[in-house]
């Protein structure tokens, strides 16, 4: 590649003269040409100043430093550290959101419910379903058959006193016999008597008793009192259970001992839970769902009921309390062991029905427990 330059192009070597980078051949060629070429000689003479300057080590070092390739400024978004910092911050925020302690939902719900206005609570209550009432109302009140005694002509006191004693006794016995023979007047309740019913016996009609006509719809709506009474009964049962039946919760430790836990606190899943039942009155406690058999509870004596280990989740446990006489031997035992006793047999069936939510059972108190397992 190193072909000698033609004589007319030898001036291209001028640049290498000042820096002293010409090869001996190039230098020789340049000098020979300069001797023959006045322009080249003049150029070399001019180049001498540059050569002398570049021969100075300090100047050479300064020029080299200035000519070193400068690092190009890189935009901040092309550098890795801003993105690394951003990714780290994002990951930390995500971890904080995922791992932060969750607020206790039931407590919040109860707190909100406590803060809800009374009108809202009343609006959310289930309205009683109107049912046809079998109790007579003033409009549907059928006319009761008046007793004959009321239809008898009223005698004045003087006239009665004037009658012989035997006659008065006989009349009194006759009236008593008629009262005993006649069925009780149905549909007439105290205070339900219309105000316009004449008080005199003579004014009462003597028509025979007729079957009661069906109550109009308006009257059926007014007859919703029994449903409300039923709701009041259930509420009374719960209140009674709150006061009469005390329940304490404990969790079994690894060493077999029991650790008491407050109500509402999450319980560990997979471990048995013990309920300590204390009642001011003797009776029988049944569970729904039937995680354990009905238990006889003596007044003032704590009775333990051990529930099997549960999975994580929430368990709604209803405790039905049926008061009754409990044999000393049956305290804390399942009712199956006490079935030989008649009262125990009766009490066993009743709480079971109560636990199943059947109305009309002899359960006087129902207490609900919400156990949360984690």
């Amino acid at each position, binding site marked *: *590649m*190193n*072909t000698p*330059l033609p004589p007319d*192009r030898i*001036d*291209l*070597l*001028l*640049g*290498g003269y000042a*820096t*002293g*980078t*010409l*090869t*001996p051949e*190039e*230098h*020789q060629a340049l*000098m*020979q040409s*300069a*001797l*023959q070429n*006045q322009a080249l*000689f*003049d150029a*070399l*003479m*001019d*180049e*001498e*100043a*540059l050569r*002398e*300057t*570049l021969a*100075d080590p*300090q*100047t*050479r070092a*300064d*020029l*080299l430093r*200035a*000519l*070193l390739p400068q690092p190009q400024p890189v935009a901040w978004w092309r550098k890795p550290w801003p993105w690394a910092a951003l990714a780290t911050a994002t990951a930390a925020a995500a971890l904080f959101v995922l791992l932060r302690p969750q607020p206790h939902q039931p407590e919040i719900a109860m707190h909100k419910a406590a803060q809800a206005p009374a009108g809202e609570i009343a609006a959310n209550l289930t309205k009683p379903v109107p049912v046809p009432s079998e109790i007579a109302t003033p409009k549907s009140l059928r006319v009761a058959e008046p007793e004959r005694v009321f239809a008898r002509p009223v005698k004045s006191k003087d006239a009665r006193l004037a009658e012989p004693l035997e006659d008065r006794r006989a009349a009194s016995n006759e009236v008593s016999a008629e009262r005993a023979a006649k069925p009780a007047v149905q549909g007439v309740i105290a205070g339900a008597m219309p105000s316009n019913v004449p008080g005199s016996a003579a004014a009462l009609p003597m028509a025979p008793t007729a079957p009661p006509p069906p109550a109009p719809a308006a009257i059926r709506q007014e007859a919703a009192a029994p449903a409300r009474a039923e709701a009041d009964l259930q509420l009374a049962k719960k209140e009674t259970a709150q006061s009469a039946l005390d329940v304490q919760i404990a969790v079994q430790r690894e060493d077999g001992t029991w650790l008491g836990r407050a109500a509402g606190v999450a319980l560990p899943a997979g471990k048995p839970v013990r309920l300590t039942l204390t009642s001011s009155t003797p009776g029988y406690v049944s569970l729904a769902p039937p995680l354990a058999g009905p238990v006889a509870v003596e007044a003032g004596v704590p009775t333990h009921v051990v529930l099997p280990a549960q999975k994580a989740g929430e368990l709604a446990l209803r405790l039905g309390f049926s008061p009754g006489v409990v044999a000393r031997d049956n305290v804390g035992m399942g009712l199956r062991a006490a079935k030989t006793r008649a009262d125990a047999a009766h009490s066993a069936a009743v709480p079971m029905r109560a636990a199943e939510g059947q109305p009309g059972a002899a359960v006087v108190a129902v207490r609900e427990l919400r156990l949360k397992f984690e």
Partner: protein
Amino acid sequence: MPSDEILRLLRERILHFAASRLSREAAEDVTQETMLLLHEKYPHVAETSELLPLAFQVVRFKMAGQVRKSVRRGESRSIPVEDLPLPSAGDDPERAASRAEMRSRLLAAIQELGERCREIFRLKLEGRNFEEIRAHFAVESINTIYTWDSRCRKSLLEKMGGRWEVQP
């Protein structure tokens, strides 16, 4: 080439160059003094490649002295050649100042060069010859490097005002 022929050509070149910068008489003086110095002090330097660079330096100093002498108004008599010896390589305040000025001008001009010219200049300052520079740029012909370097030199000279050194 015979030595006498070389000296003849060299004298012709020096006189022509000096005459382009100085007066005719001053140019003849500079040429005469230069040739006399080469003949008396450097008779052993006969090779062209050595003689010409030496002549360049002598002429430059002689011309500088001539300029200083012409500046000193009122001095009619010329300075003998013996009174103007070659300057030593030591620190001469005038030369140092001139070199510093040229260095600053060079630095400013180099910053305005293109990337390729800066790279070529850097490689030359590092002592690379044209063949190595060709290999660095991975070009096929060294004449390409010659051409690039010649253009860059002209560009640098233009950015420095057409002359390497400042005229007094």
